[in-house]
């Protein structure tokens, strides 16, 4: 009775808490407005756009090939996969078929990116949950991969490596040997990470049963990638609509059961192993031959249909010899193409008017869709679990805000 009286006197009030955009655990500049009742989240509203750079609009002013470096900056920790996705989209629009060697190189590079992205995800996710040592261990392997990227592409993160109709430069033997050594070493390293957290009771308590989303809801929310596969839906663009050499390599799509944070973690860990497997197969099967299709556009592809040849030019051979009767550069029309980046399904919707620039380019970025599922995931959980949930959807704000 006494207790009741005290509670009547206490005025309880909801609290609005702004989490981010300058919060280290929001993985960038994500702002979440949390309506709290005590420590329970009643409502969560994500605010995005703090990293908006207008990539879609910028593409309209650049030729297809000049827009490619912009794609590096979407999801800056898996830039190779974005570039490949963009190139696949433009190739399908142009009707260019890349040579076999280029396809294998791209597949290999994509999987390297997937590993480095998932490693970074694991590192930061575990760091958010208080497991510091995983972070340090996984950055060691990431460094190895970044060095390999630098060896071939000349940059560690913003690679600009794929090219419409192939890749920019060939891979050498030294690189393939080093990469093969990595693939031999890497499964042991995955086991190391798992030793640190997989059965750890703190990790289990913070991940099991948190942020459960059913397969039906996950599909309705538009989730893709490991975030969807954690709920038991075996959807993977690499399997369902193979691009590059994915139909020629053997791999499995790991799926979870319960759709909680732990299952999504398990999915990503299995994907690391599968990616490793794909890389090994690619190295073994790597065919010889050209790396760029003959009909691929030149770097200085024209933006308009007619390109004037400048006769006064002292080095006239430097000018590309596009014949004058060539009216349109790209086929006109609307076109959607999707690839599987480490985060999920990255789609490019290109509206072409026949010139060398896209009339409109729309990006379907997985991080944006996943951020929109946050309110659904956060409801009813504690504030500390929100950190786990931001981590589990593997959000990168560069891609989310574009």
């Amino acid at each position: 009775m006494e207790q009741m009286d005290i509670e009547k006197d206490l005025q309880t009030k909801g609290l609005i808490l702004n989490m981010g955009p300058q919060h280290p655990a929001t993985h960038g500049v994500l702002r979440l407005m949390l309506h709290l009742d005590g420590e329970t989240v009643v409502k969560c509203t994500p605010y995005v756009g703090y990293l908006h750079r207008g990539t879609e609009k910028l593409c309209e002013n650049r030729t297809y090939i000049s827009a490619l470096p912009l794609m590096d900056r979407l999801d800056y920790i898996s830039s190779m996969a974005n570039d490949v996705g963009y190139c696949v989209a433009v190739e399908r629009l142009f009707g260019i078929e890349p040579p076999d060697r280029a396809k294998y190189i791209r597949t290999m590079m994509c999987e390297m990116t997937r590993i480095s992205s998932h490693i970074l995800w694991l590192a930061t996710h575990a760091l958010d949950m208080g497991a510091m040592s995983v972070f340090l261990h996984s950055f060691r392997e990431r460094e190895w991969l970044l060095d390999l990227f630098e060896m071939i592409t000349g940059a560690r993160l913003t690679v600009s490596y794929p090219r419409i109709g192939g890749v920019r430069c060939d891979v050498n033997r030294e690189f393939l040997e080093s990469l093969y050594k990595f693939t031999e070493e890497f499964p042991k390293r995955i086991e190391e990470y798992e030793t640190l957290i997989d059965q750890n009771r703190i990790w289990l308590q913070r991940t099991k049963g948190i942020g459960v989303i059913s397969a039906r809801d996950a599909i309705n929310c538009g989730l893709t990638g490991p975030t969807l596969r954690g709920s038991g839906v075996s959807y993977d663009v690499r399997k369902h609509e193979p691009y590059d050499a994915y139909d020629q390599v053997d791999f499995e799509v790991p799926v979870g059961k319960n759709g909680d944070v732990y299952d999504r973690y398990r999915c990503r860990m299995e994907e690391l192993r599968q990616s490793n497997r794909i890389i090994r197969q690619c190295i073994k099967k790597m065919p010889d031959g050209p790396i760029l299709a003959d009909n691929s556009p030149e770097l200085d592809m024209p933006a308009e249909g007619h390109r004037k040849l400048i006769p006064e030019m002292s080095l006239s051979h430097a000018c590309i010899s596009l014949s004058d009767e060539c009216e349109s550069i790209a086929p006109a029309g609307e076109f959607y193409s999707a690839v599987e980046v480490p985060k999920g399904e990255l789609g490019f919707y290109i509206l072409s008017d026949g010139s060398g620039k896209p009339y409109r380019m729309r990006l379907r970025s997985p991080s944006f869709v996943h951020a929109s599922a946050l309110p659904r995931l956060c409801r009813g959980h504690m504030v500390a679990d929100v950190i786990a949930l931001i981590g589990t959807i593997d959000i990168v704000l560069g891609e989310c805000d574009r």
Partner: protein
Amino acid sequence: MTLRDAAKKIFFLEILKGLALTFRTMINRPVTRRYPKVKREPFMGFRGRHAFVRDPGTGREKCVACLKCSIVCPSQCIRIEYKETEERRVLEKYEIEALRCVFCGYCAEVCPVCALVLTEVYEYADYTREQFLFDRERLLKNWDDFSSGLKTGAYFNKFWRLSGIDINRMPVGKRLQQSVQVKQKEFLSKESFDKGRAA
């Protein structure tokens, strides 16, 4: 729950295993570098600070003002001014805004005479923005800075002629491009030293 599971629970086996790994790492060789003291050697073809190749023949830049680099540049950070004489174009102004540059390397790749290069220099922080507006003289100075530190006497950038690309796709200037002969500091100093002695 089996006995094994119970034992695991009671004795914190999974945590001990993790801790064992952490302690094992303590006696391993460190994988990190002490950066400002120990510098990382970038791979050949790393895309760093821009430079104009100083032509050993003329002592000037090789640029022919074809404007290709400024056309392909995705961030549109290259500004070129030139005037036309009867036989050729003469470069008047060449500026790269390094703060806008995205280091994609398209300019070095498209250049028909291999005049432009992204060197492997990656440490060039400065206090003012003006320091990052690379004009002609600054670009040549960048080359001198870079080439004096080279270990070999000849330099060839990867992006001038990318491996695996059909050579017929390239302009003649690129096909015939040889390694640039670089005069090195040690070599120069030795020569001047000898000269001094002779005098």
